[in-house]
């Protein structure tokens, strides 16, 4: 069994922060709806790294953090399902999922 002794909490937090910012960059940079959704999934994974790392290092309440991560997973899956359903219908009706190109509304 591998164990984590020897890696301080702050390293996990920094990794979570870096992954979160990378995901945010992906979500903001992309103009394609599927790719934006992928960026958001990366951000949610960063959240889970935070939660699980805290749950292992905190003196108390560790079970709460891991349960929180389970909820994040479930909700992310639901969000992905609805988001991708919407991507499919938009691409069927418009032939594109570039956010700029599907924008009719302005002002």
């Amino acid at each position, binding site marked *: 069994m591998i164990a984590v002794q020897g890696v301080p909490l702050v390293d996990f937090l920094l990794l979570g922060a870096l992954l979160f910012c990378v995901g945010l960059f992906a979500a903001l940079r992309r103009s394609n709806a599927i790719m934006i959704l992928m960026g958001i999934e990366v951000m949610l994974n960063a959240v889970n790294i935070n939660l699980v790392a805290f749950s292992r290092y905190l003196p108390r309440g560790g079970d709460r953090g891991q349960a929180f991560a389970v909820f994040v997973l479930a909700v992310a899956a639901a969000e992905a399902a*609805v988001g991708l359903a919407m991507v499919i219908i938009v691409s069927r009706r418009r032939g594109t999922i570039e956010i700029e190109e599907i924008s009719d509304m302005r002002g």
Partner: protein
Amino acid sequence: MNWPMVAFVVLGGITVYSGWRVATAPLVTHAALFLAVTFAGVGGLFFLLQADFLAAVQLLLYAGAVMTVVIFAIMLSEMKDIEEPRPRGWLGALRSPSLGALPFIGAVLLFAVMLVVYLRGAPALPVTPLPAPTNSTVFIAGALFKIYALPFEVASVLLLAAMIGAIILTRVEGGRRR
């Protein structure tokens, strides 16, 4: 040799690099593959953290189910413009087609703030983890069904609503009643 640290650096490096490729890969299929690697890397980090149950769920649910949905969406959406214009040079990847360099600057600023805050707090943060629970499934189940019974039920309604919604939205006959 600090083996956990080596494992952490390797797994973390893979995770962040593939996350970065999700942001910059020109082909949507490549981005999806790198997303799967990111998910797997995070699963590996959970193993390292001795959260076995979450690691297994991470692999099954993210690297399995969510990836399947993403790939289905890519295939079903029959995109003609599946490829973004290839960025010119390394700096080109930092620019957004619509927003220019703003997303990159924003993300870097946010990370800089986090970096400063975390590094200032580092000396006071715990260095060694607690002893791992003997059975992480029992550990989570206790919280999930004793404390978080209500959110658990609400989440089931949420999954139902999402399922109904996905069916309503993608139904082919176009919503007309009989």
